[in-house]
């Protein structure tokens, strides 16, 4: 047996989550093609609100926008840097995101289909910019919905921050969602629920519970996300290429109101819901639906 076969796959794998937000974005473009970062750090458009509160701003405001080609087609990748203010959305990062989505929509409606790939590592609104962060999320939602009519919007939640708060709505509106096992997706994180509703509602120190509810395996398993990827640049980039090439789906998840409303009506809310049981129920109902 030669030595190469002894090296396990996970040792050779190039980790995605160990990359910065910028490197993650760069890793998704077609090999050998040119890409360009837009409104980058050297343009120095920073948050005017953070220095007023004694917080150091960052020259890209934690939002990296790169335009290039994926699966042979024009695409823009918008990546939130989880290491800067928890990937939170402020005035500038929100405006960059909205502007990029609007421009992709403009090109797409003119016949030059331009997909958007969102790398979301974020706790949602940046509380130091509170109302401008919330307003930005409303605007991101609006612009995403316009683009989604013409070209696919693909969200990747890889970890380690996860995707929470208002930006979880953005994930919910996406055409496709890719997650890793370590990634989490939800409106309110465990700490917030414990704080607001008490430890008996959610014990935030219970990591197994947090992942059982918000984790990538659960979200993909229950059909609220589309693909469970390993923490691998190759796997994530290949999933993104596949969804860019697939184009927009016939119907988006967030349009399937009757299906999900029916599922909520069928829940037993008299006690906490067992995540695994729910996954099985929703998977079964999906299979039945598919068979029809």
């Amino acid at each position, binding site marked *: 047996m030669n030595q190469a076969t002894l090296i396990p796959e996970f040792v050779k794998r190039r980790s995605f989550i160990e990359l910065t937000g910028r490197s993650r974005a760069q890793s998704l473009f077609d090999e050998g093609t040119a890409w360009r970062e837009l409104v980058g750090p050297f343009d120095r458009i920073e948050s005017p609100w953070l220095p007023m509160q004694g917080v150091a701003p960052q020259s890209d405001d934690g939002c990296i926008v790169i335009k290039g080609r994926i699966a042979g087609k024009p695409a823009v990748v918008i990546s939130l840097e989880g290491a800067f203010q928890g990937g939170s959305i402020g005035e500038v990062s929100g405006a960059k995101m*909205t502007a990029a989505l609007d421009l992709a929509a403009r090109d797409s409606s003119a016949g030059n289909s331009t997909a958007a790939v969102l790398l979301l590592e974020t706790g949602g609104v940046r509380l130091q910019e509170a109302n401008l962060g919330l307003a930005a999320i409303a605007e991101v939602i609006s612009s995403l919905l316009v683009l989604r009519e013409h070209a696919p919007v693909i969200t990747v939640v890889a970890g380690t921050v996860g995707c929470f708060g208002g930006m979880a*709505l953005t994930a919910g509106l996406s055409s496709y969602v890719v997650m890793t096992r370590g990634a989490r997706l939800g409106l309110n994180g465990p700490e917030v*629920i414990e704080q607001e509703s008490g430890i008996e509602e959610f014990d935030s120190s219970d990591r197994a519970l947090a992942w059982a509810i918000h984790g990538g395996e659960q979200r993909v398993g229950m059909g609220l996300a589309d693909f469970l990827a390993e923490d691998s640049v190759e796997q994530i980039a290949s999933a993104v290429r596949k969804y860019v090439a697939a184009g927009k789906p016939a119907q988006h998840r967030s*349009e399937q109101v009757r299906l*999900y409303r029916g599922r909520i009506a069928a829940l037993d809310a008299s006690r906490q819901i067992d995540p695994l049981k729910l996954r099985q129920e929703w998977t079964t109902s999906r299979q039945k639906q598919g068979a029809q």
Partner: protein
Amino acid sequence: MSEQASLRGKAWFQALTGKGQPQTGDPGSVWSANEKIGPQTALFLCVVPNLESRFPCVRDGQVGLEEAYTLAARVRETMDADRKQPCSQKRPIVAIVDVKSQAYGRREETAGIFLAAAASADAYASARMAGHPVIALVVGQALSGGFLTHGYQSNCVLAFDDPGVIIHAMHKEAAARITRRSVKDLEQLGHEIVPMSYDIQDYAKLGILHELLHVDSPVKPTQSDIDTVKQAIVKAIDEARRGPLHLNVRLLSDAAKETRKAGIAARALMEQQWLEA
């Protein structure tokens, strides 16, 4: 305070529609009615407290799973009914907003409240883009995910000029805790840093509001209050019909040009560099 605030939604729904109940089959927390306002009929929607809700974390008027999907269903029903109508005939949708937040519950997270909230925002935004005038009337609180789900996708946001009206990303106590300040410091900071403020007059400086309305009695509306608000809604519907459909119109107001300079600059530079890329 929260009890008083949560009464406002009900009071204004009743004042504007003469009704006060959910549609058959809907949860008790979502009131809806199709009623005449000015020359047309509009769909009115409001999320109200429902002490009997089977979901414990929404009983004080938070927006939860049932609320979000019900709002989405009512809005989409209206869109379907008007699908063949020209834009000038599409039914207006009026969201009466008095929501303290989204639901903070484990049941909600387990069953994917993020998708429910997305479905509601999707329905409101799609209605706006299809040409339905969508108006938000903020009569009390409009906080965080509650407002994103119900009201923030409107063509026009109207709000009362009243201390009981609060539009914000997070309630004071939690925001103070997370940004490591006392509530008093946070209130002080709001006077210096406009987007942090809990004061509706400061919110107006962001340039997002369509109009601030003056009413004498925001909790128990008088007939003259009702007339004022109805007139403002009719006017907003008319302006929404004639105005742009997209939310980026919010950046064009004089107030936004002042307060949101950095965002506007980022946008302009993105447009320029996009063409070069």
